[in-house]
């Protein structure tokens, strides 16, 4: 087992006692989890968290709650926001905690939805203009990202003219340009062929290393692929005697020496962990 030096520091995201019902039918209950800033010496190490569970267990509902697009019936989801503000004692507080709102998280929907009437360039510009840090440098940022993600040649195309992989990359760049620290991805591996899947995995790892506070939350039922790039796996499942779903297990892959490793799928310990996760579903 390879142990890597790291520390878990400030809370970046916290779900506290979250529950959700539809027509008096409980969908989610008692959801508690915390995502902390992982610090690795000499690296800009972001966080990659997977939320796995069987189909129909409520993953998409939890995804919507995390994105702020839907409010929980009870409980709250808070995030740490970078807002420099003066404290009464004269010191500067750089971060503040607040309840997640729509727009706080970069959201990549399962079908990589984009405005059909906007070209890639226009869509990316819309997102870049929302990011105050990019004011006046929007064009440069778009050029840089599209070259990095290998889609610089499709800027004048409409979404209907793009392949699934290209659409996904446009969605990711769009949300990155918006400048959110959090990136929520709904089933990013579904329907991809093996070659494209490898590229997407590489891309997500690249994103996670782009900023210390960059936090990817992957909602997926592809346990092996999600776990292979994550540092933590949360398992959404059912408990006997309860109607809805809740988080039944949290697996810290860093502690097990299974995080941040390209060849992790070859490890016996990784295979055992996947079996363990499957056992919890």
């Amino acid at each position: 087992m390879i142990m890597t030096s790291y520390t878990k520091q400030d809370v970046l995201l916290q779900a506290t006692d979250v529950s959700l019902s539809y027509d008096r039918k409980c969908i989610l209950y008692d959801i508690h989890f915390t995502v902390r800033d992982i610090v690795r010496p000499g690296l800009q190490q972001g966080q990659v968290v997977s939320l796995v569970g069987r189909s129909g267990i409520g993953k998409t509902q939890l995804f919507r709650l995390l994105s702020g697009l839907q409010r929980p019936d009870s409980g709250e989801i808070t995030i740490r926001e970078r807002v420099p503000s003066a404290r009464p004692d004269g010191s500067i507080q750089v971060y503040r905690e607040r309840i997640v709102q729509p727009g706080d998280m970069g959201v990549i929907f399962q079908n990589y939805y984009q405005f059909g009437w906007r070209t890639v360039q226009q869509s990316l510009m819309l997102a870049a203009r929302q990011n105050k840090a990019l004011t006046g440098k929007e064009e440069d940022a778009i050029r840089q990202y599209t070259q990095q993600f290998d889609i610089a040649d499709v800027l004048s195309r409409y979404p209907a003219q793009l392949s699934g992989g290209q659409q996904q990359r446009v969605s990711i760049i769009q949300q990155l340009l918006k400048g959110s620290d959090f990136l929520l991805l709904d089933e990013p591996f579904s329907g991809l062929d093996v070659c494209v899947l490898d590229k997407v995995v590489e891309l997500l790892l690249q994103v996670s290393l782009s900023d210390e506070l960059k936090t990817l939350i992957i909602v997926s039922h592809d346990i092996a692929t999600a776990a292979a790039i994550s540092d933590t796996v949360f398992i959404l499942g059912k408990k006997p005697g309860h109607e809805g779903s809740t988080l039944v297990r949290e697996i810290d892959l860093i502690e097990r020496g299974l995080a941040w490793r390209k060849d992790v799928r070859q490890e016996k310990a990784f295979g055992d962990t996947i079996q363990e996760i499957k056992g919890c579903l």
Partner: protein
Amino acid sequence: MASRFNKVIMFKPFEKLNRQTFLILVVAQSAFALLAWQVSGQGLIPHPSAVLAALGHLLTTRLFVDNLLTSLLLTGQALLYSVVITLVLAYGAVIPFFAPLAQFIVKCRYLTLTGLIFIFTLLTRDGSQLKLSLLLFGIVPFLVTSFLAVILRTPAQEFELCQTLGYNRWQSLYEVIIIGKADQVFEVVRQNFAIAWMMITMVEGLNMSEGGIGALLIKYNKYNDLPHVLALQAVIFGIGLCLDYLLGTLRHWLFPYTKL
């Protein structure tokens, strides 16, 4: 061999024909219909050859061209005003305060113009205004109905994408409804243009002093000149098809993504 193949697929449900085959089918069926009309037409109903002769005569007269231009101008004016009114009402309908007004306009489809002509006559200054206001009253409810349906069909994901980009509600309205549905305005106008074109002959009949194709139609009807009546109908039909094609082409040109 290919011809036999085409013959077979022509009668298969949900089969798609290529453009050339479809055009041949349209031409052949039209020719057959004209032939059947020519052979079976008798008595008061004129033969296609008589209608064609009347059409030839019409096209050479200055009177026809002037009347046609009058009708086209009035229709264009009515459509332009109708679109502006419709957009104001439909965009306003997403704001709850204005929604009842838009819903009332939608229900106005069930009002007939016949009983309201006198009211409109009292409310307007001259024949030109009367015709225009009647056309607006006839067109706007249908345009608003169609455009509101477009707005209601907007996928939730379009608004959610706006939310994830941090847009406020006004920005979402601008992006999703005003910009995102701009191509649909053309489609709605194209689909409802037929109503305007159909109504023009009716309102021109109410006030004949300024002429127009409707006034001309009534004149020929009065003298029971059926070849000219049918020739005018053919012109109305042909211009309707041309304008329909023009609006469709304009939509594709202005909004290239609609072709994808």
